[in-house]
């Protein structure tokens, strides 16, 4: 197979003797081109933003403890709401799952020394801090208040300066994703070790491939939508101004054409993480390798044809509502295939209850709930009732919180030893898991009822009849906020003093475990040769 047509900086096979073995801490604050440094930069950046976004959520939930808007001003509530949603998506899941895990793992998993375009990679990361600063800085101008969806005309008339900063911030983040996506596709196509055919590539890499394709197809559309919005706000154009011949529905199509696939784009890498973590800790080959990788591809394709289900009650002609009901329901099938495959992987295993595995199983359960409520939302008649209510908030937090937070924690517990060379403390990890699982369900389960009973979303005040359920949600949110504490202690303590991990503490079979922990700068002294598949547990294997 033709490999390595793209020249990278060093000799492909052997690292020269005088090469530095590891980076120092300050290298993590520079324009470093090592994919591992960039991966960790992404992870730390996104975790900081997760904490900021989480803080916003706690303030919102505190406000919602009582029916009246008595804790914060309703304008501020909307600003927090908008930035919470935006940060969680563009500052947390996307950078952590795609940027963080993707950059760290893809080259290691395919036996490459780095990404195909290391400088582009660093550039993609360094677009994010300014994007984050723009977003946080917008609070000085009142904060964007039109929700993370920023529908015009509302977004045209409230806080124009803050809204413009919001648009620019998302366009920067989107550019970063596009650069990253190109890099992933080329890296996987060109830099796999010669002994690794496509069908021996780990499923995480397949998930990243599907994600990258989806990013390339959908992100530019969002950028266009937002740039037009920016023009409408600042330069007197009227793409979305109804009184000047514009059309507000066009924006919704442009927005959701990106933002619905974005949901899969966030969740596919996490599915990838699941497909790595479960086999290792269950000591079983993944069940249905092909089924899982093709379901990623089907999700990636069908995902492009479902965006209108966000617009059933908006300006959507009847035939479209039906077309999109059907296409939306279809996505449930490949998603189900994945869930069943992971479940079947557990069968006959020898499951180790590490924190990573607990979070993976927690994700499965959360995701089943979120997926089932998603099916009800996908059908237009029910969606008409519950659209824009807390039922939707419940659903997408089961999917996004359940999916992202559980999946990313599973990934962190699993790969932390590789990244830092040290093990995390399992007891703290288990406390963290229990608090997160309980907190998440107390917070989000009652929201289903709130929504169907009549509480709309994005409100700082609500009818007194909903008080009790809201108070339960708020208490859950406090538990969730607290659940981060054992995790933070664990990470900080273990990073410095944790027991040494060694190259392969979990006896895993993918390539990243064949090098030191943490891996040396060019990943391997000598590029590895594939002697077995990524999931050949329980089979006769040649020892490496």
């Amino acid at each position: 197979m033709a490999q390595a047509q793209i020249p990278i900086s060093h000799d492909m096979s052997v690292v020269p003797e005088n090469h530095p073995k590891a980076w120092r801490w300050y290298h993590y604050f520079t324009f470093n081109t090592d994919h591992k440094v960039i991966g960790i930069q992404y992870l730390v950046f996104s975790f900081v933003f997760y904490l900021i976004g989480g803080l916003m959520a706690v303030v919102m939930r505190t406000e919602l403890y009582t029916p009246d808007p008595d804790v914060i001003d309703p304008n501020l509530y909307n600003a927090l709401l908008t930035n919470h949603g935006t940060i969680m998506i563009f500052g947390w899941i996307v950078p952590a799952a795609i940027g963080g895990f993707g950059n760290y793992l893809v080259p290691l998993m395919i036996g490459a020394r780095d990404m195909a375009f290391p400088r582009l990679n660093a550039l993609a990361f360094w677009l994010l801090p300014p994007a984050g600063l723009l977003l946080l800085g917008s609070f000085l101008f009142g904060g964007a208040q039109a929700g993370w969806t920023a529908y015009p005309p509302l977004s045209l008339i409230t806080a124009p300066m803050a809204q413009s900063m919001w648009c620019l911030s998302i366009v920067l983040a989107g550019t970063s994703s596009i650069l990253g996506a190109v890099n992933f596709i080329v890296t996987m196509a060109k830099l796999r070790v010669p002994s690794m055919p496509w069908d021996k590539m780990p499923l995480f890499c397949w998930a990243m491939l599907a994600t990258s394709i989806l990013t390339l197809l959908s992100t530019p559309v969002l950028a266009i939508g937002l740039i037009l919005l920016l023009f409408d706000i600042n330069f007197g154009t009227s793409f979305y101004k109804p009184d000047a011949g514009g059309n507000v529905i066009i924006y919704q199509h442009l927005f959701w054409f990106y933002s619905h696939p974005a949901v899969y784009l966030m969740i596919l890498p996490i599915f990838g993480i699941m497909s790595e973590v479960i086999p290792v800790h269950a000591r079983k080959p993944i069940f249905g390798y092909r089924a899982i990788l093709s379901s990623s591809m089907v999700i990636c394709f069908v995902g492009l044809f479902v965006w209108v289900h966000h617009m059933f009650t908006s300006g959507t002609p009847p035939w479209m509502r039906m077309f999109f009901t059907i296409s939306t329901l279809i996505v449930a099938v490949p998603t189900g295939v994945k869930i069943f495959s992971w479940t079947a992987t557990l069968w006959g295993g020898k499951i180790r209850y590490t924190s990573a595995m607990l979070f993976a199983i927690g994700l499965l359960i959360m995701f089943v709930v979120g997926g089932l409520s998603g099916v009800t939302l996908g059908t237009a008649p029910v969606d008409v009732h519950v659209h824009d209510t807390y039922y939707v908030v419940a659903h997408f937090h089961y999917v996004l919180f359940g999916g992202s937070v559980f999946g990313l924690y599973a990934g962190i517990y699993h790969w932390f030893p590789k990244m830092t060379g040290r093990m995390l403390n399992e007891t703290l990890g288990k406390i963290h898991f229990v608090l997160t699982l309980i907190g998440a369900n107390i917070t989000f389960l009652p929201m289903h009822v709130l929504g169907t009973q009549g509480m709309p979303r994005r409100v700082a005040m609500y009818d007194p009849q909903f008080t009790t359920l809201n108070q339960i949600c708020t208490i859950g949110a406090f538990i969730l906020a607290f659940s981060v504490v054992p995790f933070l202690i664990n990470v900080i303590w273990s990073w410095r003093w944790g027991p040494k991990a060694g190259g392969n503490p979990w006896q895993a079979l993918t390539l990243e475990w064949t090098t030191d922990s943490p891996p040396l700068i060019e990943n391997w002294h000598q590029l590895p040769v594939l002697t077995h598949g990524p999931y050949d547990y329980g089979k006769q294997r040649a020892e490496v």
Partner: protein
Amino acid sequence: MQRIPTAIWTLTVGVLVTLVAIWVGNHVSLFPEQASAQAPLVDDFFKLMLMIATALFLLVAGTILIFAVQFRRRPGEEGDGVPIEGDFALEAYWTLIPAVIVIVLGVYSVQVFTEMGGFAVGGGGGNHLLMGHQHSATAHLVSDEGESSRPKYGFGGSGEPDVTVTVTGMQYAWIFNYPEGIVSGELHIPVHKTVQLNIKSADVIHSFWVPQFRLKQDAIPGQDTVLRFTATKVGDYPVVCAELCGAYHGAMRTRVHVHTQEDYEKWLAENLAAQNPDMASTVAVNTDHQ
């Protein structure tokens, strides 16, 4: 002890799960009372989905938990599990089952949607009616939009509705214009009559939602929408704005009063007398009885 055959286990579990699912579907009601002809359609559909969801949840979550316990690594155990990589029949089976469920739900939802009037938007009825009013004495009140755009979006129906009201959403209130020249801050309608709302927005997007009717339709600036329904129960219900429309979005609430026919006519008569039709389109009067 003799081993119990798998078939019996499967059967027992199947029956139990089915029973629980049916019980949940019939006893867990997440929805508020039903007050429109559309509501039972939506609720029955949801009930079916709730049963299916309960059954699937029990099966999948149950399987996960059982496997998780059964196949845990016992102390002192070393080595790997059995190397099963896949099973075509099994995979085909669990692709087909959800596919069938999903197709059934898809077809059912098209049918429910048709019955709800989702396909008759801007059909003969609504348009005909608007033209009818154009010739009547109160034409200026119904057609003050001045444009010929007929609604393309929403829920319609065939034939003429019994009552037509123009609803305008604005930050942060709903204004209801009656063809008779009445302007009100709350919606008054007769029970068991087809009502058509022509929904407009004066500024940003709002969304007209009556949870007890299970109906919702956005008010879109520059593009009128319709919502046609029949209220089936006398009473008053909240009208909620469901689309973020600014800081006081959560306070954009009013009520819909469903009257008996006589009460409705009484309300009409009282308000016709009380309101000066010339001011109708500029002033919103709260016409609550208190």
